[in-house]
Structures are given as C-alpha cells and as structure tokens.
C-alpha cells in the first residue's frame, strides 16, 4: 500500500477528522491524500501557529485534529504549543517532515534539524522518529497514545522514510 494512503488510513482508524497543513516537498503526497479523503476536513493554513489555533478549535468542537508541517517551523510554534495546546491540555499529533537529516540536499535545512529534538525535549513533547518504511507500523499506536494522554506529540518522518515509499 502507498505510504501516504496508509497514513490517512491510520488517521481514520484513530478518528481524526480535521487536518491542517503547511506544505513541504516531502509532504506533498500525504497532503494530497488528506485532501482527497472525504471523511477528513482539510484546511490548509498560512502559518503553523495559526494551524495550532485551528486544531485547538476543532478539538473544542469535538473533532480529533492533526497538523502536518515541517520541522523548520517548530521555532515559531513554541508559544502556541506551550500556552495553548499544553496549557489547556489538548491532544495534538504533529506529523512533521524532518528536513535536514541524512539525505538532505539543502544545507540550510540542517540548521533547524539540529534544534528540532532539543526543542521538543525542552518542551517535554513526546517525540517519535520514523526512519525506515516499516516504522509506519507504529503510527496508529502513536496517534492512539496522543489522544489517550491529551498532549501534543511530534512524529518526525525523515527523508529516508519518505524516499522508501
């Protein structure tokens, strides 16, 4: 099965009904799959902090949300994660393209890659790293865990994971 369709299947299995996205080259396939699925309301946003506001609203409305974004945006969402998602104890799985890891072609992406895990660790955000194609087997349990714990979680999917598909 195509990995992007598998990701969306895992969203549905975990009752995710609202997804907001900011594009990344690595994420184009999964964004297309989200857009096509008729049980998912897809709202593209202009900025990841805005997206976290949309997800908070969706959760208040009784719908499980998810944000799909690039790790380079983590720095501009620290306040939204701390003062909105964590402060009000809301669940938010973040499917993050982990740019700047081995296989990266754009040198500047490495700069934020070096800060990605330290920021997540500093914020006590449970983080998972999808590196091989088989790691997709863990996604459904991670999503289930996110809503059980009612916390934000980071699912970092690197170039090796996306290129394996």
């Amino acid at each position, binding site marked *: 099965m195509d990995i992007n369709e598998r990701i969306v299947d895992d969203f549905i299995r975990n009752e995710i*009904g*609202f997804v907001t996205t900011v594009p990344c080259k690595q994420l184009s396939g999964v964004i297309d799959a989200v857009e096509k699925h008729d049980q998912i*309301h897809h*709202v*593209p*946003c*202009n*900025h990841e*902090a*805005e*997206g*976290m*506001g*949309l*997800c*908070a*609203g*969706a*959760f*208040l*409305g*009784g*719908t499980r*949300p998810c944000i799909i974004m690039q790790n380079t945006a983590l720095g501009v969402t620290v*306040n*939204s994660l*701390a*003062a*909105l998602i964590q*402060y*009000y*104890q*809301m669940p938010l799985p973040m499917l993050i393209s982990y740019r700047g890891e081995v296989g990266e072609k754009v040198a500047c992406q490495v700069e934020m890659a070096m800060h990605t895990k330290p920021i997540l660790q500093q914020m006590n955000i449970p983080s998972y790293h999808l590196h091989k194609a088989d790691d997709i087997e863990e996604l459904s349990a991670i999503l289930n865990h996110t809503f059980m714990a009612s916390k934000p979680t980071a699912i970092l999917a690197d170039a090796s994971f996306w290129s394996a598909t």
Partner: protein
Amino acid sequence: MIRSEVTKSIIPVITDELVVCNIGLPSQELFMHDDQPSNFYMLGTMGLCSSIGLGLALNQNAPVLAIDGDGSILTNFGTLATIANNPADNFTLLIIDNGSYGSTGDQPTYAGKKTSLSKVAKACGCANVIECQGEEAAEEVGKALKGNQMTIIVCKCESGNVPVPNILTHPVSIRDRFMTEVEARN
C-alpha cells in the same frame, strides 16, 4: 465608546452563545461582565482567537462568536485569507478595533493609522464584511449570530482601559466546561 463598553453592550446578545475571546483585557472584561461556561477565555497565544473560533465553527453546528482585536488580527494576518476560503456560516468574527494594543498600554496599531481591516477582509475574499461604530455593535452582532451567513464585523471604537480582575479559573476547567457547553448544543 471604549472596548470595555462595547463588550458590556453586547452581553445581552452573546450571553447564551459560544464565545471565543481574545487574550488579555478583552477576556478579563468579558469575565468581569458575564462569566459563563460558554466563554472560552484565551490566556496565552496572541493572535489565535479567530483561528480557534473558525476551527470550532467548522467542527460543530452551533453559532460561534470570536471576539478579537485589531492588534491580534495584525499578529495573525493570514487568518483572514483562511477564513475567507473556508467559510463557516455559523461563524461571526467581531474585531473590536480600537486602533491600539490595549492590554500592553495602548501603543498604536497600524489599524488605527493607514490600514483598514474591513478592506483587508474584503480583499482576502470575505463575502460579508461590516464596519460599524461601537454603539451599533450589539445590533450587528445579534443579527450576525442569527443570520446563518459567515460575517466579519469590524467595530471601530476609542482606545482606553478600565481596571479588571485577573482570570484565576484553571485553563483545564475553562476548556472542560466550554466543551460541555458545545456538546449540549450539538
């Protein structure tokens, strides 16, 4: 009229509605005038009020009012494009535009200078944009909440603040009681 008076004037039309309120003095004023479990007070994250309101409106059926400010809209300017392109007919966005960052000491915003938020909202593609004065806010908000058509109201008023209490309600309590109100309406 200053923002606090605008807020007080709309209480009769919003007291039973789902309200998402902007961070700082706007939430504290709403809390002071009419604390309700159907109010979601923002305690952090400048700029996200309209986004939370839109996300809520898109995911359940009851009318939603987001009470935002000019400074907050300028912080998250992309929100007007997202709102325009994802219309929710149960959503009303009230921007109380006093031309200043009220909560931080009334430093002027660009909305009080050359920038027209109602024109920006229209340029973003919002179909139903109303600009009014503080005295007209209650009537316009009341109409919008009953209108079943997504409405952006830019309400112009004076800068200025009044003393207000801090909101000591725990954030999880604010969230939990609000979600109970959402469920009861759906």
